[in-house]
């Protein structure tokens, strides 16, 4: 029975992790560099949701689109202002720039909100119990939101013009350019989408734990691990990777102290890079 509980917990953790992992991998697919500011934007999203919920009195569901918009806009704005100039000199400079950007955003939050842990204003609900199995209703709710968001994203990428443009650039930037697809607009869109998703991820993960400025940094390794395990640049891969990391983190609790959860992500990265560098669902090896 304990194993079932672990599986349930792992799947729900994976669903939450999938959202920022999709964000990270989308940006990588289109812009071809790891955007480490994802952690900072997760924190921005988490605090946006927190303010909307505790000060604005909005219900949880309403905070998600707000967090998406705010994180997406700040993500694109800061990218245009500080990072886009670095991209021509290669992915290295841009990646380093995004680390500094993430630190900047985190410290801006620290300046305004301080280091204290904060929680959402949500009435506590008794866990659902199925025999020995305990399922907190709000986790199910969060996981459901995450699944709906993934479905919406899937439709956006598959059926809308913008989604197709993004996929075209991700697939072959030169060919997409020949077809008249505006590269700058597409990369901005990818950054907006990716950072917006990171923001939502911040809210959902913040609901599960507590929020402080380092919430993104603490989760970031698991997010990268999900993206790398699934294959950098592959969105279905990021989802699969997130489930694997979520399950792995819960399973690891059987063997090691809870503080080592984050180590699972790192281990998964090392394993996958040693044996299947392009990831489980990645089409290319970068």
């Amino acid at each position, binding site marked *: 029975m304990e194993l079932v509980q672990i599986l349930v917990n792992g799947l729900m953790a994976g669903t939450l992790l999938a959202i920022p992992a999709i964000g990270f991998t989308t940006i990588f697919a289109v812009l071809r560099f790891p955007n480490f500011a994802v952690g900072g934007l997760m924190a921005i999203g988490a605090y946006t949701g927190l303010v909307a919920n505790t000060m604005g009195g909005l219900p949880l569901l309403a905070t998600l689109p707000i967090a998406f918009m705010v994180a997406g806009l700040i993500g694109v704005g800061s990218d245009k202002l500080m990072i886009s100039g670095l991209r021509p000199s290669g992915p*290295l400079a841009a990646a380093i*720039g995004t680390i*500094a950007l993430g*630190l*900047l955003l985190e*410290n801006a939050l620290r300046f305004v909100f301080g280091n204290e842990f904060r929680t959402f204003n949500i009435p506590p609900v008794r866990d659902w119990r199925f025999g020995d199995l305990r399922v907190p209703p709000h986790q199910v709710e969060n996981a459901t939101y995450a699944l709906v968001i993934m479905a919406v994203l899937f439709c956006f990428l598959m059926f809308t013009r913008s989604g197709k443009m993004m996929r075209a650039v991700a697939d072959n930037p030169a060919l997409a350019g020949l077809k008249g697809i505006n590269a700058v607009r597409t990369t901005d869109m990818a950054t907006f989408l990716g950072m917006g998703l990171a923001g939502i991820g911040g809210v959902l993960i913040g609901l599960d734990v507590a929020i402080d400025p380092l919430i993104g940094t603490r989760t970031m390794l698991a997010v*990268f691990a999900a993206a790398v395990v699934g294959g950098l640049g592959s969105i279905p891969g990021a989802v699969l990777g997130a489930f694997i990391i979520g399950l792995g983190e819960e399973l690891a609790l059987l063997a090691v*102290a809870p503080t080592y959860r984050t180590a699972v*992500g*790192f281990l998964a990265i090392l394993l996958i890079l040693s044996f299947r560098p392009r990831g489980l669902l990645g089409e290319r090896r970068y």
Partner: protein
Amino acid sequence: MENYLIAMTVFAGIYAIMALGMNLIWGLGGMVNLGLAGFYAVGAYTSALVTTKLGLPIYLAVPLAVLVSALVGVIVAVITARLQGDYLAIVTLGLAELVRLTASNEIWLTNGTDGISGVPGPWRGVLSPTAFNSLYLGIVLCIIAVLFLVLSRLAASPFGRVLRAIREDEMIAAVAGKNVLSFKIRTFAVGCGLVGLAGALFAHYSSYVAPDVFQSIVTIHVILAVAVGGVGNMRGALLGAVIVIALGEATRFLAGSLDFIAPSQAAAVRESLIALFLIVVLNVRKQGLLPEKTPVYSEEKR
């Protein structure tokens, strides 16, 4: 006041050693190590542990720390060297986190977040604080001088030339018959070893290591030092380290003088300024204050 100045110079020296290591990896090799703080911690903890727990003398502990850090570097490089640099960035970033996690949680070994105190320094007991500080500064400066000479020679040597070729275009270097993988792994290992050396020097100077010392801001500082000084220029790395320490202290006074904000806010202002400064430098002056001078081979010379 003079002790403060000496201490700051020692810290600048420690940063300079890290900057030299980073410059080798990034400036010459074109690779990235975003987990510098982790390697710094590995060096510091190794040296602190073998001196306090095993009673090894400092002159054996420091080389051991260099070796261990370099070994960790080899492992990371071997796993990622065949892939694009993005993977190295992600893995090194994760490694720093893992090191900090281990340092905070393996209490039996590292004493957790309380850290290890009482790390011995050379003749710390018999000398006055000023004399100890000056002596340590001398040691650090000698090490830097040796490293600087060796690395400058290395950069100008055939080895350095191959590294720059790999940095510019791996494929061409490989076609020219160079074993790209081996060059990258060796360079990364030496760079990481230098960062570990800086960690060991820090441990024996401050006599105290704790996970809090090895935050990712250290990595940002060193990257900033290399970027400001001039990526690929060893002299630039030294200049950059001095500038970064001066900047760090200046922002400390600046944030301290804003007495209407809380201490945690002051810390936030400091880190933001450093991060912002790095972004500005990367955007505005990519080549740094002292740009890399690549040797020109004219026809007459040959």
